[in-house]
Protein backbone atom coordinates (compact mmCIF):
# COMPACT_ATOMS: atom_id res chain seq x y z
CA UNK A 1 0.00 0.00 0.00
CA UNK A 2 1.35 3.39 -0.85
CA UNK A 3 1.67 6.21 1.62
CA UNK A 4 -0.62 8.50 -0.30
CA UNK A 5 -3.41 5.94 -0.30
CA UNK A 6 -3.02 5.45 3.42
CA UNK A 7 -3.79 9.08 4.03
CA UNK A 8 -7.22 10.29 4.88
CA UNK A 9 -9.06 11.81 1.98
CA UNK A 10 -9.94 15.31 3.09
CA UNK A 11 -13.57 15.73 4.10
CA UNK A 12 -14.67 19.24 3.41
CA UNK A 13 -17.83 20.92 4.58
CA UNK A 14 -19.37 22.74 1.70
CA UNK A 15 -21.97 24.76 3.55
CA UNK A 16 -19.70 27.81 3.45
CA UNK A 17 -21.33 29.58 6.39
CA UNK A 18 -19.30 28.29 9.32
CA UNK A 19 -16.18 30.32 10.00
CA UNK A 20 -13.03 28.58 8.81
CA UNK A 21 -11.40 27.90 12.18
CA UNK A 22 -8.14 26.75 10.60
CA UNK A 23 -7.36 29.97 8.76
CA UNK A 24 -8.52 32.13 11.66
CA UNK A 25 -6.28 30.37 14.16
CA UNK A 26 -3.38 30.37 11.73
CA UNK A 27 -3.69 34.10 11.20
CA UNK A 28 -3.92 34.72 14.96
CA UNK A 29 -0.75 32.69 15.56
CA UNK A 30 0.91 34.59 12.74
CA UNK A 31 -0.12 37.91 14.23
CA UNK A 32 1.21 36.88 17.65
CA UNK A 33 4.52 35.70 16.16
CA UNK A 34 4.81 38.86 14.10
CA UNK A 35 4.48 41.17 17.10
CA UNK A 36 6.30 39.18 19.80
CA UNK A 37 9.22 37.42 18.07
CA UNK A 38 12.28 38.95 16.47
CA UNK A 39 11.79 39.37 12.75
CA UNK A 40 15.37 40.01 11.70
CA UNK A 41 18.76 40.11 13.37
CA UNK A 42 21.72 42.29 12.51
CA UNK A 43 25.30 41.24 13.15
CA UNK A 44 28.38 43.41 12.59
CA UNK A 45 30.29 40.44 11.13
CA UNK A 46 30.07 36.73 10.33
CA UNK A 47 30.74 35.05 13.66
CA UNK A 48 29.21 37.44 16.21
CA UNK A 49 25.64 36.60 17.19
CA UNK A 50 23.29 39.24 15.87
CA UNK A 51 20.95 41.43 17.87
CA UNK A 52 17.29 40.83 17.16
CA UNK A 53 14.77 43.46 16.03
CA UNK A 54 11.01 43.21 16.33
CA UNK A 55 8.65 44.00 13.47
CA UNK A 56 8.25 47.81 13.83
CA UNK A 57 12.00 48.30 14.18
CA UNK A 58 12.74 46.00 11.29
CA UNK A 59 10.16 47.06 8.73
CA UNK A 60 9.21 50.51 10.01
CA UNK A 61 5.73 51.29 11.28
CA UNK A 62 4.14 51.48 7.80
CA UNK A 63 5.45 48.03 6.88
CA UNK A 64 4.42 46.49 10.20
CA UNK A 65 0.93 47.98 9.92
CA UNK A 66 0.52 46.84 6.32
CA UNK A 67 1.38 43.26 7.32
CA UNK A 68 -0.98 43.47 10.33
CA UNK A 69 -3.75 44.72 8.05
CA UNK A 70 -3.26 41.74 5.73
CA UNK A 71 -3.28 39.27 8.67
CA UNK A 72 -6.53 40.82 9.92
CA UNK A 73 -7.97 40.62 6.42
CA UNK A 74 -7.28 36.88 6.40
CA UNK A 75 -9.17 36.46 9.68
CA UNK A 76 -12.00 38.63 8.42
CA UNK A 77 -12.38 36.81 5.10
CA UNK A 78 -12.19 33.42 6.82
CA UNK A 79 -15.06 34.38 9.11
CA UNK A 80 -17.62 33.93 6.33
CA UNK A 81 -15.93 31.74 3.78
CA UNK A 82 -17.32 31.45 0.27
CA UNK A 83 -15.71 30.54 -3.01
CA UNK A 84 -14.97 34.19 -3.71
CA UNK A 85 -13.62 34.79 -0.22
CA UNK A 86 -11.29 31.82 -0.58
CA UNK A 87 -9.98 33.27 -3.84
CA UNK A 88 -9.40 36.60 -2.09
CA UNK A 89 -7.66 34.74 0.73
CA UNK A 90 -5.39 33.01 -1.75
CA UNK A 91 -4.52 36.43 -3.22
CA UNK A 92 -3.79 37.82 0.25
CA UNK A 93 -1.54 34.91 1.20
CA UNK A 94 0.36 35.06 -2.08
CA UNK A 95 0.75 38.83 -1.71
CA UNK A 96 2.13 38.46 1.83
CA UNK A 97 4.65 35.89 0.64
CA UNK A 98 5.73 38.08 -2.25
CA UNK A 99 6.03 41.11 0.06
CA UNK A 100 8.29 39.33 2.55
CA UNK A 101 11.60 39.95 0.72
CA UNK A 102 10.67 43.63 0.34
CA UNK A 103 10.38 43.78 4.11
CA UNK A 104 13.98 42.59 4.27
CA UNK A 105 15.04 45.29 1.82
CA UNK A 106 13.41 47.92 4.05
CA UNK A 107 15.14 46.57 7.13
CA UNK A 108 18.52 46.53 5.42
CA UNK A 109 18.04 50.25 4.76
CA UNK A 110 16.81 50.95 8.27
CA UNK A 111 19.25 48.87 10.31
CA UNK A 112 22.55 48.65 8.48
CA UNK A 113 24.84 51.65 8.54
CA UNK A 114 26.65 52.12 5.23
CA UNK A 115 30.13 52.24 6.81
CA UNK A 116 29.79 48.69 8.17
CA UNK A 117 30.76 46.71 5.09
CA UNK A 118 30.78 43.39 6.95
CA UNK A 119 27.36 43.83 8.51
CA UNK A 120 24.84 41.17 7.69
CA UNK A 121 21.15 40.70 8.10
CA UNK A 122 19.86 37.41 9.50
CA UNK A 123 16.32 36.06 9.44
CA UNK A 124 14.70 35.96 12.89
CA UNK A 125 12.45 33.34 14.41
CA UNK A 126 9.35 35.45 13.73
CA UNK A 127 10.21 35.63 10.05
CA UNK A 128 10.52 31.84 9.76
CA UNK A 129 7.32 31.22 11.72
CA UNK A 130 5.40 33.65 9.51
CA UNK A 131 6.73 32.04 6.34
CA UNK A 132 5.91 28.56 7.63
CA UNK A 133 2.35 29.50 8.60
CA UNK A 134 1.78 31.19 5.24
CA UNK A 135 2.77 27.90 3.59
CA UNK A 136 0.26 26.10 5.82
CA UNK A 137 -2.40 28.61 4.74
CA UNK A 138 -1.54 27.84 1.12
CA UNK A 139 -1.96 24.08 1.74
CA UNK A 140 -5.30 24.70 3.45
CA UNK A 141 -6.53 26.97 0.64
CA UNK A 142 -5.50 24.43 -1.98
CA UNK A 143 -7.67 21.84 -0.24
CA UNK A 144 -10.62 24.23 0.18
CA UNK A 145 -10.53 25.47 -3.40
CA UNK A 146 -9.98 21.92 -4.71
CA UNK A 147 -7.03 23.02 -6.80
CA UNK A 148 -4.78 20.51 -8.53
CA UNK A 149 -1.14 20.27 -7.59
CA UNK A 150 -0.23 22.43 -10.57
CA UNK A 151 -1.62 25.65 -9.11
CA UNK A 152 0.39 25.92 -5.90
CA UNK A 153 3.46 24.89 -7.87
CA UNK A 154 2.93 27.76 -10.31
CA UNK A 155 2.20 30.26 -7.53
CA UNK A 156 5.22 29.16 -5.52
CA UNK A 157 7.48 29.39 -8.58
CA UNK A 158 6.23 32.93 -9.12
CA UNK A 159 6.92 33.82 -5.50
CA UNK A 160 10.35 32.16 -5.72
CA UNK A 161 11.11 34.32 -8.77
CA UNK A 162 10.27 37.48 -6.81
CA UNK A 163 12.47 36.29 -3.94
CA UNK A 164 15.34 35.50 -6.27
CA UNK A 165 15.10 38.90 -8.03
CA UNK A 166 15.09 40.74 -4.69
CA UNK A 167 18.01 38.67 -3.42
CA UNK A 168 20.21 39.31 -6.45
CA UNK A 169 19.33 42.96 -6.93
CA UNK A 170 18.93 44.51 -3.50
CA UNK A 171 19.68 42.09 -0.71
CA UNK A 172 23.48 42.05 -0.66
CA UNK A 173 23.51 42.41 3.09
CA UNK A 174 21.41 39.30 3.75
CA UNK A 175 23.64 36.74 5.46
CA UNK A 176 22.42 33.88 3.29
CA UNK A 177 23.20 35.87 0.12
CA UNK A 178 26.65 36.74 1.44
CA UNK A 179 27.40 33.12 2.22
CA UNK A 180 26.28 32.19 -1.28
CA UNK A 181 28.33 34.92 -2.96
CA UNK A 182 31.44 33.88 -1.05
CA UNK A 183 31.23 30.39 -2.57
CA UNK A 184 28.87 30.44 -5.52
CA UNK A 185 31.04 28.14 -7.66
CA UNK A 186 31.41 25.69 -4.79
CA UNK A 187 27.68 25.83 -4.17
CA UNK A 188 26.75 25.02 -7.74
CA UNK A 189 29.26 22.18 -7.81
CA UNK A 190 27.86 20.85 -4.53
CA UNK A 191 24.31 20.90 -5.91
CA UNK A 192 25.56 19.05 -8.99
CA UNK A 193 27.39 16.45 -6.89
CA UNK A 194 24.37 15.99 -4.67
CA UNK A 195 22.04 15.37 -7.59
CA UNK A 196 24.53 13.07 -9.33
CA UNK A 197 24.96 10.93 -6.22
CA UNK A 198 21.21 10.70 -5.69
CA UNK A 199 20.62 10.03 -9.39
CA UNK A 200 23.15 7.20 -9.59
CA UNK A 201 22.05 5.62 -6.31
CA UNK A 202 18.37 5.72 -7.22
CA UNK A 203 18.82 4.41 -10.77
CA UNK A 204 21.02 1.55 -9.59
CA UNK A 205 18.55 0.67 -6.87
CA UNK A 206 15.64 0.77 -9.33
CA UNK A 207 17.36 -1.80 -11.52
CA UNK A 208 18.52 -3.93 -8.58
CA UNK A 209 15.18 -3.57 -6.82
CA UNK A 210 13.22 -4.66 -9.87
CA UNK A 211 15.52 -7.63 -10.40
CA UNK A 212 15.30 -8.63 -6.75
CA UNK A 213 11.51 -8.28 -6.69
CA UNK A 214 11.20 -10.44 -9.80
CA UNK A 215 13.48 -13.09 -8.29
CA UNK A 216 11.43 -12.99 -5.09
CA UNK A 217 8.27 -13.68 -7.02
CA UNK A 218 9.91 -16.72 -8.55
CA UNK A 219 11.69 -18.10 -5.47
CA UNK A 220 9.49 -17.70 -2.43
CA UNK A 221 12.27 -18.63 -0.02
CA UNK A 222 14.40 -15.70 -1.14
CA UNK A 223 11.68 -13.28 -0.08
CA UNK A 224 12.07 -13.87 3.65
CA UNK A 225 15.87 -13.84 3.60
CA UNK A 226 16.08 -10.70 1.48
CA UNK A 227 13.59 -8.75 3.56
CA UNK A 228 15.36 -9.77 6.79
CA UNK A 229 18.73 -8.59 5.48
CA UNK A 230 17.34 -5.34 4.07
CA UNK A 231 15.41 -4.62 7.27
CA UNK A 232 18.57 -5.19 9.28
CA UNK A 233 20.52 -2.77 7.05
CA UNK A 234 17.98 -0.05 7.81
CA UNK A 235 18.58 -0.30 11.56
CA UNK A 236 22.25 0.56 11.19
CA UNK A 237 22.50 4.35 11.48
CA UNK A 238 23.55 5.98 8.24
CA UNK A 239 26.73 7.56 9.60
CA UNK A 240 27.80 4.16 10.92
CA UNK A 241 27.27 2.42 7.59
CA UNK A 242 29.21 5.15 5.81
CA UNK A 243 31.98 4.80 8.37
CA UNK A 244 32.03 1.00 8.27
CA UNK A 245 32.62 0.99 4.52
CA UNK A 246 35.72 3.16 4.82
CA UNK A 247 38.05 0.41 6.00
CA UNK A 248 37.30 -2.46 3.61
CA UNK A 249 37.25 -0.15 0.60
CA UNK A 250 40.53 1.48 1.59
CA UNK A 251 42.00 -2.01 1.94
CA UNK A 252 40.69 -2.98 -1.51
CA UNK A 253 42.06 0.17 -3.09
CA UNK A 254 45.53 -0.54 -1.70
CA UNK A 255 45.57 -4.25 -2.54
CA UNK A 256 43.71 -4.40 -5.84
CA UNK A 257 45.26 -1.82 -8.18
CA UNK A 258 42.59 -2.42 -10.81
CA UNK A 259 39.84 -1.24 -8.46
CA UNK A 260 41.92 1.74 -7.39
CA UNK A 261 42.19 2.71 -11.05
CA UNK A 262 38.40 2.58 -11.27
CA UNK A 263 38.23 5.18 -8.53
CA UNK A 264 37.51 2.94 -5.57
CA UNK A 265 38.86 4.41 -2.37
CA UNK A 266 38.03 4.37 1.30
CA UNK A 267 36.91 7.95 1.39
CA UNK A 268 34.70 9.83 -1.02
CA UNK A 269 32.17 8.74 -3.55
CA UNK A 270 32.45 4.93 -3.57
CA UNK A 271 31.53 4.16 0.07
CA UNK A 272 28.84 6.84 -0.14
CA UNK A 273 27.28 5.24 -3.20
CA UNK A 274 27.41 1.72 -1.76
CA UNK A 275 25.74 2.87 1.46
CA UNK A 276 23.14 4.92 -0.41
CA UNK A 277 22.23 1.95 -2.60
CA UNK A 278 22.06 -0.36 0.43
CA UNK A 279 19.61 1.98 2.13
CA UNK A 280 17.58 2.61 -1.02
CA UNK A 281 17.02 -1.06 -1.71
CA UNK A 282 14.50 -1.74 1.09
CA UNK A 283 11.84 0.85 0.15
CA UNK A 284 12.46 0.09 -3.53
CA UNK A 285 12.13 -3.69 -3.25
CA UNK A 286 9.21 -3.49 -0.85
CA UNK A 287 7.18 -1.21 -3.10
CA UNK A 288 8.09 -3.01 -6.32
CA UNK A 289 7.16 -6.34 -4.79
CA UNK A 290 3.80 -5.18 -3.42
CA UNK A 291 3.11 -3.26 -6.63
CA UNK A 292 3.53 -6.39 -8.73
CA UNK A 293 1.64 -8.57 -6.24
CA UNK A 294 -1.30 -6.22 -5.81
CA UNK A 295 -2.40 -6.36 -9.44
CA UNK A 296 -5.88 -7.86 -9.39
CA UNK A 297 -5.88 -11.58 -10.31
CA UNK A 298 -9.21 -11.09 -12.07
CA UNK A 299 -7.64 -8.68 -14.55
CA UNK A 300 -4.77 -11.10 -15.17
CA UNK A 301 -7.24 -13.93 -15.64
CA UNK A 302 -9.11 -11.81 -18.19
CA UNK A 303 -5.85 -11.13 -20.02
CA UNK A 304 -5.17 -14.85 -20.05
CA UNK A 305 -8.64 -15.50 -21.38
CA UNK A 306 -7.99 -13.04 -24.19
CA UNK A 307 -5.12 -15.28 -25.22
CA UNK A 308 -2.20 -13.17 -24.05
CA UNK A 309 1.11 -14.94 -23.56
CA UNK A 310 2.89 -14.82 -20.17
CA UNK A 311 5.35 -12.17 -21.34
CA UNK A 312 2.54 -10.11 -22.85
CA UNK A 313 0.60 -10.36 -19.62
CA UNK A 314 3.61 -9.06 -17.71
CA UNK A 315 4.55 -6.19 -20.01
CA UNK A 316 1.08 -5.10 -21.11
CA UNK A 317 -1.02 -5.75 -18.01
CA UNK A 318 0.92 -6.33 -14.82
CA UNK A 319 3.66 -3.72 -15.20
CA UNK A 320 1.47 -0.82 -16.38
CA UNK A 321 -1.01 -1.49 -13.58
CA UNK A 322 1.80 -1.71 -11.01
CA UNK A 323 3.52 1.43 -12.26
CA UNK A 324 1.89 4.02 -9.94
CA UNK A 325 2.76 2.06 -6.78
CA UNK A 326 6.19 1.36 -8.20
CA UNK A 327 6.72 5.08 -8.76
CA UNK A 328 5.61 5.66 -5.19
CA UNK A 329 8.59 3.52 -4.18
CA UNK A 330 10.88 5.57 -6.40
CA UNK A 331 9.54 8.74 -4.74
CA UNK A 332 10.14 7.50 -1.20
CA UNK A 333 13.58 6.18 -2.14
CA UNK A 334 14.64 9.41 -3.83
CA UNK A 335 13.49 11.64 -0.99
CA UNK A 336 15.31 9.41 1.50
CA UNK A 337 18.45 9.37 -0.65
CA UNK A 338 18.48 13.19 -0.83
CA UNK A 339 18.65 13.35 2.94
CA UNK A 340 21.18 10.54 3.30
CA UNK A 341 23.52 12.09 0.74
CA UNK A 342 23.82 15.04 3.10
CA UNK A 343 25.26 12.68 5.73
CA UNK A 344 27.66 11.28 3.14
CA UNK A 345 29.49 14.61 3.24
CA UNK A 346 31.05 13.41 6.51
CA UNK A 347 33.13 10.87 4.61
CA UNK A 348 34.11 13.32 1.91
CA UNK A 349 31.56 12.50 -0.76
CA UNK A 350 30.82 16.19 -1.32
CA UNK A 351 27.35 17.50 -1.94
CA UNK A 352 25.31 20.00 0.01
CA UNK A 353 25.99 18.30 3.32
CA UNK A 354 29.51 19.76 3.15
CA UNK A 355 28.11 23.19 3.94
CA UNK A 356 26.04 21.85 6.83
CA UNK A 357 28.94 20.13 8.55
CA UNK A 358 31.47 22.87 7.78
CA UNK A 359 29.01 25.44 9.05
CA UNK A 360 28.39 23.44 12.22
CA UNK A 361 32.15 23.14 12.72
CA UNK A 362 32.71 26.87 12.31
CA UNK A 363 29.55 27.79 14.23
CA UNK A 364 28.52 29.74 11.10
CA UNK A 365 24.79 29.18 11.08
CA UNK A 366 24.14 30.92 7.77
CA UNK A 367 26.40 28.42 6.08
CA UNK A 368 24.38 25.61 7.68
CA UNK A 369 21.27 27.19 6.18
CA UNK A 370 22.98 27.42 2.79
CA UNK A 371 23.30 23.62 2.89
CA UNK A 372 20.06 22.69 4.62
CA UNK A 373 17.57 24.89 2.73
CA UNK A 374 18.43 23.61 -0.77
CA UNK A 375 18.28 20.01 0.50
CA UNK A 376 14.82 20.68 1.89
CA UNK A 377 13.68 22.31 -1.34
CA UNK A 378 15.16 19.54 -3.46
CA UNK A 379 13.29 16.95 -1.38
CA UNK A 380 10.01 18.86 -1.65
CA UNK A 381 10.35 19.40 -5.41
CA UNK A 382 11.16 15.74 -6.06
CA UNK A 383 8.31 14.67 -3.81
CA UNK A 384 5.80 16.90 -5.59
CA UNK A 385 7.07 16.02 -9.07
CA UNK A 386 7.10 12.24 -8.67
CA UNK A 387 3.83 12.35 -6.72
CA UNK A 388 2.16 14.19 -9.61
CA UNK A 389 3.65 11.73 -12.11
CA UNK A 390 2.31 8.75 -10.15
CA UNK A 391 -1.11 10.40 -9.98
CA UNK A 392 -1.13 11.00 -13.73
CA UNK A 393 -0.12 7.39 -14.47
CA UNK A 394 -2.84 5.91 -12.29
CA UNK A 395 -5.26 4.01 -14.52
CA UNK A 396 -8.05 6.40 -15.45
CA UNK A 397 -5.81 9.46 -15.16
CA UNK A 398 -5.45 11.97 -12.35
CA UNK A 399 -8.37 12.00 -9.92
Amino acid at each position, binding site marked *: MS*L*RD*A*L*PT*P*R*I*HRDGLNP*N*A*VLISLSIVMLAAFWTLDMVSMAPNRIVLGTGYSAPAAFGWPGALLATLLFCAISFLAWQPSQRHYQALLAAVVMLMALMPFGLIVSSFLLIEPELAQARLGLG*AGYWVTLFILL*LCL*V*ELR*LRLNLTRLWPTLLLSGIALVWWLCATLWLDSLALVQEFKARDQLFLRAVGQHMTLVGIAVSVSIVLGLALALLMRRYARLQKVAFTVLN*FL*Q*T*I*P*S*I*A*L*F*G*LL*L*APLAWLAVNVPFLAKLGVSGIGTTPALIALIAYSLLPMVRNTYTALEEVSPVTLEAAKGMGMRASQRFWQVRLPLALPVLLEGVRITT*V*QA*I*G*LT*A*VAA*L*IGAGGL*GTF*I*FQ*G*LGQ*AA*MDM*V*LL*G*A*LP*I*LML*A*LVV*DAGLGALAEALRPGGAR
Partner: protein
Amino acid sequence: MSNSLWRWPLLWISLLLISVVGMSAAEPLFHWVEPDARQVIYSRADFYVLLGRHLFVVGIAALVTISIGVSAGIAVTRKRGSDFLPLVGQVASLGQTFPPVAVLALAVPVLGFGTLPIIVALMLYGLLPIVRNTLTGLQEVDAELITAAHAMGMTPLQILRQVELPLAAPVILAGIRTSVTINIATAALGATVGASNLGDPIISGIVNGNMAYVVQGALTIALLALSVDSLFEVLQRQLRSRLSAS
Protein backbone atom coordinates in the same frame (compact mmCIF):
# COMPACT_ATOMS: atom_id res chain seq x y z
CA MET B 1 4.45 -20.19 22.75
CA SER B 2 5.50 -17.40 25.09
CA ASN B 3 9.07 -18.68 24.95
CA SER B 4 9.34 -18.23 21.21
CA LEU B 5 7.67 -14.84 21.55
CA TRP B 6 10.39 -13.48 23.80
CA ARG B 7 13.29 -15.26 22.11
CA TRP B 8 14.41 -12.45 19.83
CA PRO B 9 14.13 -9.54 22.28
CA LEU B 10 16.02 -11.55 24.91
CA LEU B 11 18.74 -12.42 22.43
CA TRP B 12 19.21 -8.83 21.22
CA ILE B 13 19.06 -7.30 24.69
CA SER B 14 21.59 -9.74 26.11
CA LEU B 15 23.89 -9.15 23.14
CA LEU B 16 23.51 -5.40 23.71
CA LEU B 17 24.37 -5.71 27.39
CA ILE B 18 27.33 -7.97 26.66
CA SER B 19 28.70 -5.55 24.09
CA VAL B 20 28.24 -2.54 26.39
CA VAL B 21 29.84 -4.15 29.45
CA GLY B 22 32.46 -6.25 27.76
CA MET B 23 33.65 -3.96 24.98
CA SER B 24 37.16 -3.76 26.46
CA ALA B 25 37.41 -7.57 26.60
CA ALA B 26 37.31 -7.58 22.81
CA GLU B 27 40.44 -5.43 22.61
CA PRO B 28 42.58 -8.02 20.78
CA LEU B 29 39.87 -8.36 18.15
CA PHE B 30 39.81 -4.61 17.54
CA HIS B 31 43.64 -4.57 17.42
CA TRP B 32 43.31 -6.94 14.52
CA VAL B 33 40.83 -4.54 12.83
CA GLU B 34 43.02 -1.52 13.37
CA PRO B 35 46.63 -2.74 13.84
CA ASP B 36 48.26 0.71 13.59
CA ALA B 37 46.18 2.53 16.17
CA ARG B 38 47.57 3.02 19.67
CA GLN B 39 44.15 2.84 21.24
CA VAL B 40 41.37 0.70 19.88
CA ILE B 41 38.65 0.97 22.53
CA TYR B 42 36.74 4.24 22.63
CA SER B 43 37.48 5.59 26.09
CA ARG B 44 36.33 9.20 26.28
CA ALA B 45 33.19 7.94 27.99
CA ASP B 46 32.03 4.53 29.15
CA PHE B 47 29.72 2.73 26.77
CA TYR B 48 26.98 2.31 29.33
CA VAL B 49 27.01 6.08 29.92
CA LEU B 50 26.70 6.69 26.18
CA LEU B 51 23.93 4.10 25.95
CA GLY B 52 22.12 5.77 28.84
CA ARG B 53 22.33 9.19 27.19
CA HIS B 54 21.19 7.75 23.89
CA LEU B 55 18.19 6.11 25.53
CA PHE B 56 17.43 9.30 27.45
CA VAL B 57 17.31 11.44 24.30
CA VAL B 58 15.25 8.93 22.34
CA GLY B 59 12.98 8.28 25.34
CA ILE B 60 12.21 11.94 26.02
CA ALA B 61 11.54 12.53 22.33
CA ALA B 62 9.32 9.44 22.19
CA LEU B 63 7.30 10.43 25.28
CA VAL B 64 6.62 13.90 23.91
CA THR B 65 5.87 12.74 20.36
CA ILE B 66 3.52 9.97 21.48
CA SER B 67 1.51 12.24 23.75
CA ILE B 68 1.36 15.13 21.25
CA GLY B 69 0.93 12.94 18.17
CA VAL B 70 -1.83 10.70 19.50
CA SER B 71 -3.77 13.56 21.07
CA ALA B 72 -3.48 15.62 17.87
CA GLY B 73 -4.72 12.64 15.89
CA ILE B 74 -7.64 12.20 18.26
CA ALA B 75 -8.45 15.92 18.31
CA VAL B 76 -8.76 16.32 14.55
CA THR B 77 -10.90 13.22 14.14
CA ARG B 78 -13.49 14.59 16.63
CA LYS B 79 -16.35 16.57 15.20
CA ARG B 80 -15.20 19.84 16.71
CA GLY B 81 -11.66 19.59 15.35
CA SER B 82 -12.61 18.19 11.96
CA ASP B 83 -11.83 21.52 10.28
CA PHE B 84 -8.17 20.86 10.93
CA LEU B 85 -8.19 17.30 9.60
CA PRO B 86 -7.22 17.98 5.96
CA LEU B 87 -4.39 20.31 6.94
CA VAL B 88 -2.94 17.98 9.58
CA GLY B 89 -3.15 15.01 7.21
CA GLN B 90 -1.34 16.93 4.48
CA VAL B 91 1.34 18.25 6.82
CA ALA B 92 1.96 14.78 8.27
CA SER B 93 2.65 13.41 4.80
CA LEU B 94 4.62 16.45 3.68
CA GLY B 95 6.78 16.49 6.79
CA GLN B 96 7.96 12.99 6.02
CA THR B 97 9.95 14.42 3.13
CA PHE B 98 12.08 16.60 5.43
CA PRO B 99 15.48 14.92 5.75
CA PRO B 100 16.47 14.49 9.44
CA VAL B 101 19.87 16.10 8.83
CA ALA B 102 18.20 19.22 7.49
CA VAL B 103 15.80 19.35 10.45
CA LEU B 104 18.74 18.94 12.82
CA ALA B 105 20.75 21.60 11.00
CA LEU B 106 17.83 24.02 11.14
CA ALA B 107 17.30 23.37 14.86
CA VAL B 108 20.87 24.32 15.77
CA PRO B 109 20.73 28.04 14.82
CA VAL B 110 17.62 28.43 16.99
CA LEU B 111 18.59 26.25 19.96
CA GLY B 112 22.38 26.25 19.98
CA PHE B 113 24.70 23.23 20.27
CA GLY B 114 24.19 20.32 22.62
CA THR B 115 21.45 17.86 23.49
CA LEU B 116 18.46 20.19 23.07
CA PRO B 117 18.55 20.55 19.25
CA ILE B 118 18.77 16.79 18.77
CA ILE B 119 15.79 16.22 21.08
CA VAL B 120 13.76 18.82 19.19
CA ALA B 121 14.78 17.44 15.80
CA LEU B 122 13.84 13.92 16.90
CA MET B 123 10.51 15.18 18.20
CA LEU B 124 9.66 16.93 14.95
CA TYR B 125 10.75 13.99 12.87
CA GLY B 126 9.17 11.33 15.03
CA LEU B 127 5.85 13.14 15.31
CA LEU B 128 4.78 12.54 11.73
CA PRO B 129 4.57 8.73 11.55
CA ILE B 130 2.61 8.76 14.82
CA VAL B 131 0.13 11.41 13.67
CA ARG B 132 -0.27 9.71 10.31
CA ASN B 133 -0.91 6.28 11.80
CA THR B 134 -3.25 7.62 14.51
CA LEU B 135 -5.31 9.29 11.77
CA THR B 136 -5.36 6.16 9.62
CA GLY B 137 -6.15 3.91 12.57
CA LEU B 138 -9.02 6.04 13.84
CA GLN B 139 -10.50 6.57 10.39
CA GLU B 140 -10.39 2.90 9.54
CA VAL B 141 -12.68 2.09 12.46
CA ASP B 142 -15.99 0.97 10.99
CA ALA B 143 -18.47 3.84 11.15
CA GLU B 144 -21.30 1.39 11.84
CA LEU B 145 -19.54 0.17 14.97
CA ILE B 146 -19.44 3.74 16.26
CA THR B 147 -23.10 4.21 15.42
CA ALA B 148 -23.90 0.98 17.22
CA ALA B 149 -21.93 2.09 20.27
CA HIS B 150 -23.75 5.40 20.16
CA ALA B 151 -27.09 3.64 19.96
CA MET B 152 -26.12 1.56 23.01
CA GLY B 153 -25.98 4.83 24.91
CA MET B 154 -22.22 5.23 25.15
CA THR B 155 -20.91 8.74 25.63
CA PRO B 156 -18.38 10.07 23.07
CA LEU B 157 -15.58 9.59 25.62
CA GLN B 158 -16.63 5.99 26.20
CA ILE B 159 -16.80 5.37 22.45
CA LEU B 160 -13.30 6.77 22.08
CA ARG B 161 -11.81 4.78 24.95
CA GLN B 162 -13.68 1.51 24.57
CA VAL B 163 -14.28 1.25 20.83
CA GLU B 164 -12.12 3.51 18.70
CA LEU B 165 -8.77 3.46 20.52
CA PRO B 166 -8.64 -0.32 21.09
CA LEU B 167 -9.47 -0.95 17.43
CA ALA B 168 -6.96 1.63 16.20
CA ALA B 169 -4.25 0.54 18.65
CA PRO B 170 -2.35 -1.85 16.32
CA VAL B 171 -2.00 0.83 13.63
CA ILE B 172 -1.02 3.49 16.18
CA LEU B 173 1.53 1.13 17.72
CA ALA B 174 3.02 0.47 14.28
CA GLY B 175 3.48 4.23 13.87
CA ILE B 176 5.18 4.49 17.26
CA ARG B 177 7.45 1.59 16.32
CA THR B 178 8.53 3.28 13.07
CA SER B 179 9.06 6.58 14.84
CA VAL B 180 11.19 5.16 17.66
CA THR B 181 13.33 2.88 15.48
CA ILE B 182 14.10 5.69 13.06
CA ASN B 183 14.91 7.99 15.96
CA ILE B 184 17.39 5.56 17.52
CA ALA B 185 19.43 5.66 14.33
CA THR B 186 18.92 9.39 13.78
CA ALA B 187 19.98 10.31 17.31
CA ALA B 188 23.51 9.25 16.35
CA LEU B 189 23.63 12.35 14.16
CA GLY B 190 23.42 14.37 17.36
CA ALA B 191 27.12 13.73 17.88
CA THR B 192 27.80 16.19 15.04
CA VAL B 193 26.14 19.01 16.97
CA GLY B 194 27.85 18.33 20.28
CA ALA B 195 25.35 15.98 21.92
CA SER B 196 27.17 13.08 23.54
CA ASN B 197 25.64 9.68 22.77
CA LEU B 198 26.41 6.47 20.91
CA GLY B 199 27.10 8.52 17.78
CA ASP B 200 30.25 9.88 19.46
CA PRO B 201 32.52 6.88 18.80
CA ILE B 202 31.36 6.83 15.17
CA ILE B 203 32.10 10.49 14.54
CA SER B 204 35.44 10.47 16.30
CA GLY B 205 36.30 7.24 14.48
CA ILE B 206 35.57 8.84 11.11
CA VAL B 207 37.46 12.01 12.03
CA ASN B 208 40.54 10.16 13.35
CA GLY B 209 40.39 7.37 10.81
CA ASN B 210 39.99 4.75 13.53
CA MET B 211 37.72 2.00 12.22
CA ALA B 212 37.54 0.23 15.57
CA TYR B 213 35.64 3.17 17.11
CA VAL B 214 33.18 3.20 14.21
CA VAL B 215 32.53 -0.52 14.57
CA GLN B 216 31.91 -0.16 18.31
CA GLY B 217 29.44 2.70 17.90
CA ALA B 218 27.64 1.11 14.96
CA LEU B 219 27.38 -2.27 16.65
CA THR B 220 25.90 -0.86 19.83
CA ILE B 221 23.37 1.31 18.00
CA ALA B 222 22.33 -1.53 15.71
CA LEU B 223 21.86 -3.85 18.71
CA LEU B 224 19.88 -1.17 20.53
CA ALA B 225 17.65 -0.63 17.48
CA LEU B 226 17.11 -4.38 17.08
CA SER B 227 16.31 -4.81 20.80
CA VAL B 228 13.72 -2.04 20.80
CA ASP B 229 12.27 -3.12 17.48
CA SER B 230 11.86 -6.72 18.64
CA LEU B 231 10.21 -5.52 21.87
CA PHE B 232 7.67 -3.63 19.79
CA GLU B 233 7.15 -6.77 17.71
CA VAL B 234 6.22 -8.68 20.89
CA LEU B 235 3.91 -5.87 21.98
CA GLN B 236 2.18 -5.82 18.60
CA ARG B 237 1.71 -9.59 18.61
CA GLN B 238 0.22 -9.57 22.08
CA LEU B 239 -2.11 -6.75 21.11
CA ARG B 240 -3.19 -8.57 17.99
CA SER B 241 -3.86 -11.84 19.80
CA ARG B 242 -5.83 -10.00 22.48
CA LEU B 243 -7.93 -8.27 19.81
CA SER B 244 -8.67 -11.48 17.98
CA ALA B 245 -9.44 -13.28 21.26
CA SER B 246 -12.03 -10.79 22.42
